[in-house]
């Protein structure tokens, strides 16, 4: 097993989340907002979609070197399961479910003569003898078969769960929110099963310029999007929380220094700071080529740097919010009482201030996630995002953008990136809304 830097941080993030969850379990002030989220249909459905993405991202974060491999490459669990997709490369573009290549070339006929035409794809629809007539029935049949298999699988699991559940939980499962959630799970699982079932036979979303399967690219990009959305937050949180609380609590020169730091950082246009830093990383990597032996390590280092830089540029907003809130909190009676009773300042910060600003932290983490995922695409477009060799929606859009001028239009790369990105960002935005409603004391009062 190979642990890349971002993998390690993802594991760390999971541990942190689990620890926080255990710590906060059963606490009354956390329970109420959580129940409010649990009652919201939109919230639960978007959570299910998010968890589905996270699951794929996690599968893609377990890297190892295959034992039978000679090429010194590192693959993830997801790659391992998607081996047919990974290896079924065509020559160049082909449309979704196509059996023939996008561009014409010379084909050698069985009788030895050459002909100018669209050659058959090497893998897409290879099992068909006569694509013109057999293709559509075959696709429909395979899709239905896959759907049925996926559906029966999920129904089996649901029945199993039902059988194992205690009586009081059964009532919970019958609430309308739970029914909606189960329906969504059912749809997601059966459709993804159908897609997985179809993908060895066809290129479901077509292939790109170098003939790589677009479906595979889009799925692989999920990890990049999630890593940028979450690790950036993990990196910026300590800075924002410590600086924000200290500035608000101690005021005086501490406040001045911290305010100076974040105003300075804020006054540099974000994109330019990112661009400058990424340029530096590029130069550094170019002059230390021997440290980055494999492509994936290189791409991973750059991804990590990107997260750090995004973290540095984005902590200022949260820091300012926390400072303002702490300024308010330190004048509250209970903080005054604590300091009058002689509680040490460190203890006041930890026990009284920190828990009372956590809702701001949580809300801003959830709100930032979607904007970071969107930012990744834009940054990749200007070539200051993730490494050009790594999979990301930004790179997919960037690669497909120029092909819009071709005739017929090469639309599938863009569409695939759009669908995946839209699903993730929409789910994140909707979930963020619900979380904000539940945790923001100002909102929960009047709605």
């Amino acid at each position, binding site marked *: 097993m190979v642990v890349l830097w971002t993998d390690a941080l993802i594991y760390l993030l999971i541990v942190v989340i689990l620890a926080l969850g255990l710590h906060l379990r059963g606490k009354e002030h956390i329970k109420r907002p959580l129940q409010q989220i649990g009652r919201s249909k939109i919230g639960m459905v978007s959570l299910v979609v998010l968890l589905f993405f996270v699951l794929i991202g996690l599968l893609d974060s377990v890297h190892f070197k295959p034992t039978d491999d000679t090429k010194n490459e590192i693959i993830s669990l997801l790659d391992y399961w998607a081996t047919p997709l990974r290896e079924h490369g065509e020559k160049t573009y082909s449309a979704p479910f196509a059996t023939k290549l996008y561009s014409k070339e010379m084909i050698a006929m069985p009788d030895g003569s050459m002909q100018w035409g669209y050659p058959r794809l090497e893998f897409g629809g290879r099992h068909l003898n006569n694509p013109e007539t057999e293709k559509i029935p075959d696709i429909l049949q395979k899709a239905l078969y896959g759907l049925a298999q996926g559906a029966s699988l999920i129904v089996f699991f649901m029945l199993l769960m039902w059988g194992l559940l205690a009586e009081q939980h059964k009532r919970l499962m019958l609430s309308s929110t739970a029914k909606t959630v189960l329906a969504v799970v059912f749809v997601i699982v059966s459709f993804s099963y159908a897609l997985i079932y179809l993908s060895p036979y066809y290129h479901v979303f077509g292939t790109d310029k170098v003939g790589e399967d677009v479906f595979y690219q889009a799925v692989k990009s999920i990890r990049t999007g999630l890593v940028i959305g979450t690790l950036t937050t993990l990196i910026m949180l300590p800075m924002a929380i410590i600086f924000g609380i200290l500035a608000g609590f101690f005021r005086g020169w501490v406040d001045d220094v911290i305010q100076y730091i974040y105003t300075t950082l804020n*006054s540099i246009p974000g994109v330019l700071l990112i661009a400058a830093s990424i340029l530096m990383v590029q130069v550094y990597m170019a002059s230390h080529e021997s440290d980055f032996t494999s492509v994936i390590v290189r791409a991973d280092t750059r991804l990590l740097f990107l997260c750090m830089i995004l973290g540095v540029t984005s902590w200022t907003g949260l820091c300012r919010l926390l400072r303002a809130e702490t300024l308010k909190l330190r004048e509250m009676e209970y903080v005054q009482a604590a300091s009058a009773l002689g509680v040490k300042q460190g203890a006041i910060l930890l026990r009284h201030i920190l828990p009372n600003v956590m809702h701001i932290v949580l809300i801003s983490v959830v709100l930032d996630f979607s904007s970071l995922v969107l930012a990744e695409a834009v940054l990749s*477009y200007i*070539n200051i995002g993730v490494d050009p060799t790594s999979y990301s929606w930004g790179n997919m859009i960037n690669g497909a*953008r120029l092909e819009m001028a071709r005739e017929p239009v090469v639309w599938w790369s863009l569409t695939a990136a759009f669908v995946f990105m839209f699903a993730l*960002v*929409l789910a994140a935005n909707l979930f963020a809304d619900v979380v904000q409603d539940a945790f923001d004391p100002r909102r929960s009062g009047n709605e």
Partner: protein
Amino acid sequence: MTQYIIRRLLYSLPLLMGVNILTFVLFFVVNSPDDMARMQLGQKHVTEQAIANWKQQHGYDVPLLWNDSAQGGGKITDTVFYQKSVGLFLFRFGVSDSGRNIGADIKERAWPSLAVALPTLMIGLLVNICFALMMVLFRNSYISKDGVYAAGQSGAGAALEHAGIVLCVILMSISSLFYIIGGQFVIGKVLRLVPISGYDDGMAAVKFLILPVLIGVFSGIGSGTRWYRTLFLEEVGKDYVRTARAKGLSETQTLFRHVLPNAMIPILTGVVVVLPLLFMGSLIMESFFSIPGLGSYTIDAINSQDFAIVRAMVFLGSVLYVIGLLLTDISYTLVDPRVRLS
């Protein structure tokens, strides 16, 4: 007032100094000028002589922070840091790594940037405020019918408002790249209403500007409307609005005569902050529509790894931001008589 402005301007000096030091560290300490020279001249097979020549040409041939070989004050002034920073503070940006005059380039390219950014901002503001007002109006027409404040339940107005919010979230969730690509494809390529990209001098530029402005406005509707709606709702909940209703004013009258002017304070001051930054242009818009503004200038510099231009743009951006903050403070006193600067 004048005193305040002067003090703020003085206060911005350490800020710009900080920005300058930060960019200096990023550009020169992390990567020595030797690295840059190698980058510019091509990675491999570069002679020492070529590097020295390149450094000489671009003024990087002196030590970074401290020149031991120079006399007296020259120990500080004969350094890369001093020479490059003084140039920036005097707005003499010098020549780019590829040999062009940066100051002249910036002057020439600021206007196309502004020509895209200003209409986008203005029209966007107007459209967003209209939509936000409409949503608040729907919500309120429902309230006045029942006489109770109970949003989010059944009722035509509330349903419309709810649909509006969901639509906003959907619009927000689409990457701006897709708005641009989709807009170019549908309006420029399929319908052939306007040219897909390009730019021209004078009035001929208008036909090139329509599409970027339109797309810019459209991509901002989701988040803008939602944000302004919360501002309006905050204002609607206040006591003077209830008084106005109690006087018997109609919903529209309250909204336009009482709520709108008060909600404009945060909206306008929010706009003032970004006004100076409009000169910087939008990075993606300009490069997609090949408009020769400062945004595409920056992107080109990033792509060709031209450090001198990027450094100049970073500095310019910070200066404009500081000016924006100052303008915001001044505009507060203008629109809200309760605020006094001291």
